[in-house]
């Protein structure tokens, strides 16, 4: 640090500024477009700051597509998937972290391998299975898929959190004659609470943002989730629609941005704990 001279420091600031521009400009352009009136969007010399900012695009976006309905669908799917995922993943993560038996090993292997699946290989059979169960175009079918889809990362994060809990308390509980399940429920799970909340939030964002499964499994606009409805805006493209498209896209990002800001540090920690020890 003492050896870093002034010109090197200046170069670092220039580089940092370049990164800031690269990272920020698409997002700023989205916001700018969302607040521009139609005639400004049609202008041949677009500006960064809307001269005449308006909320019309937001109003028009809600008129053009069932955005509220879609947000509701997304909320139901993401919330259910996140809750179910952590409820079933936490005990399994506990066993994976504390045991070295065959099930734990196989589960760890599955977590790693599942990252390499091309989803098309899994979506065709799932589509056929869900069709036979009459669960196509149903949020229930989508939620089932989302639960399993978010499990690998949830398990990965949770195993990291379990490993951070000292084993002494569990040994004490075992000495007192508590069963495995009892030890897990009353000793380990409460200590894991912050990690479980972070994992649930991450699973929520993943499902809220998901597009491919929703595109394949949901057929009618009344059932479709926000990303699929957003994609329908593009289908009806034309210069006049850029504003509402930007407005809707901007709104769809806000929930995940807020949640991400809250859990950002924990995700990094969980990821690392999983990655380093896996």
């Amino acid at each position, binding site marked *: 640090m003492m050896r870093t001279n002034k010109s090197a420091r200046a170069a*670092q*600031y220039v*580089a*940092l500024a370049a*990164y*800031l521009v690269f*990272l920020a400009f*698409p*997002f700023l352009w989205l916001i700018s477009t969302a607040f521009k009136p139609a005639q400004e*969007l049609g202008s*041949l010399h*677009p500006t960064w700051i809307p001269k005449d900012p308006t909320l019309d695009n937001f109003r028009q976006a809600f008129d053009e597509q069932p955005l509220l309905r879609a947000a509701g669908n997304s909320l139901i799917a993401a919330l259910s998937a996140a809750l179910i995922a952590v*409820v079933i993943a936490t*005990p*399994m993560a506990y*066993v994976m972290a*504390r*045991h070295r*038996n065959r*099930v*734990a090993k196989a589960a760890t292997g599955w977590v790693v391998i599942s990252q*390499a*699946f*091309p*989803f*098309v*290989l*899994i979506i*065709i*059979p799932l589509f*056929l299975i869900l069709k036979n169960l009459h669960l196509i175009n149903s949020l229930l079918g989508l939620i*089932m*898929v989302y*639960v*399993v889809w978010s*499990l690998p990362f949830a398990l990965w994060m949770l195993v990291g959190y379990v490993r951070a809990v000292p084993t002494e308390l569990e*040994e004490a509980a*075992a000495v007192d004659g508590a069963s495995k*399940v009892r030890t*897990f429920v009353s000793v380990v799970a409460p200590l894991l609470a912050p990690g479980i909340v972070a994992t649930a939030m991450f699973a929520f964002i993943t499902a*809220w*943002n998901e*597009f491919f499964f929703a595109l*394949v499994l949901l057929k009618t606009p009344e059932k479709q989730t926000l*990303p699929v409805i*957003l*994609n329908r*805006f*593009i289908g009806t493209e034309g*210069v006049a629609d850029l504003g509402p498209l*930007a407005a809707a896209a*901007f709104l769809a*990002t806000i929930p*995940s941005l807020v*949640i*991400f*800001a809250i859990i950002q540090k924990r995700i*990094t920690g969980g*990821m690392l704990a999983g*990655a380093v020890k896996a």
Partner: protein
Amino acid sequence: MTLATATKRSARGKPGRGVADHGAWFLVLPALIPILVLSVGPLLYGIALAFTDSQSGRTEPTQWVGALNFQDLLHDTLFWDSFRIGLLWAFGVTVPQFFLALGLALLLNQPLRMRWLARALAIIPWAMPEVVVGIMWRLVYHPDAGVLNQTLSNLGLGDGKDWLTGTATALFAVIVVGIWAGMPQTTVALLAGLQNTPRELHEAAAMDGAGAWRRFRTVTWPAIKPIALAITALNFIWNFNSFALVYVLTQGGPGGRTRLPMLFAYEEAFRYGQFGYAAAMGCVMVAVISVILAVYLVGRLKGGDEA
């Protein structure tokens, strides 16, 4: 009391080693059943479908056709075009992204002002739905209303292009978006690795008169190498298998110039109803990815021996 503890412990054995602990099953089953039914099962079913003539909406029963789908795939130049595009895209995104992310991580590890802002911004693409990222960049690339052409013409660098619809520029344009969208995960992972690097080593190396590059090569790189290799391998696989971003940006156009294998397989399965054929494509993708993964794992194990 000590005796009791000892007995209890030996009764439990080494943690989990071959002990018939039914409690553990209770804890595992709630997740294991959905995994088997909705992930492992469908995966095997999908592989089986690759050897059938399964189609959507057909009345005759599905039949085994052996390796016929794979034989057809071998001669399907459109598929191999998309495969080549998939590899180009995966390399084109993963490699520059790694170096950009490494640079950003090194900067964020320095005591610079505005570092918090860069950290916050670096997270945004991660939290955004891929569909929104795609829409956002369509707005940036828009021929008339987009900021890119406007900026270029302001700088006197020509009067702009139809980036996403031009055959020469489309793949390049989507690769830039891919780099942007995946920067955060890579940066955060590398930054975490940097922060685990012992500071004393750095200082010792500096005292010995090692320059910045030598310090990076001898201290920093060995410390972050495992994470760097892991994140690069994962990025490559994720990119090769990606769908939403490019689907929203170009739908695979113009003229298939950005048709990644996943987009091709999706169309084959859900537009033309060729389930068996699309499943065979999925199998080929898995096979290639497995080879890459195996090469990487061998490399990582060897690297581990050196360290």
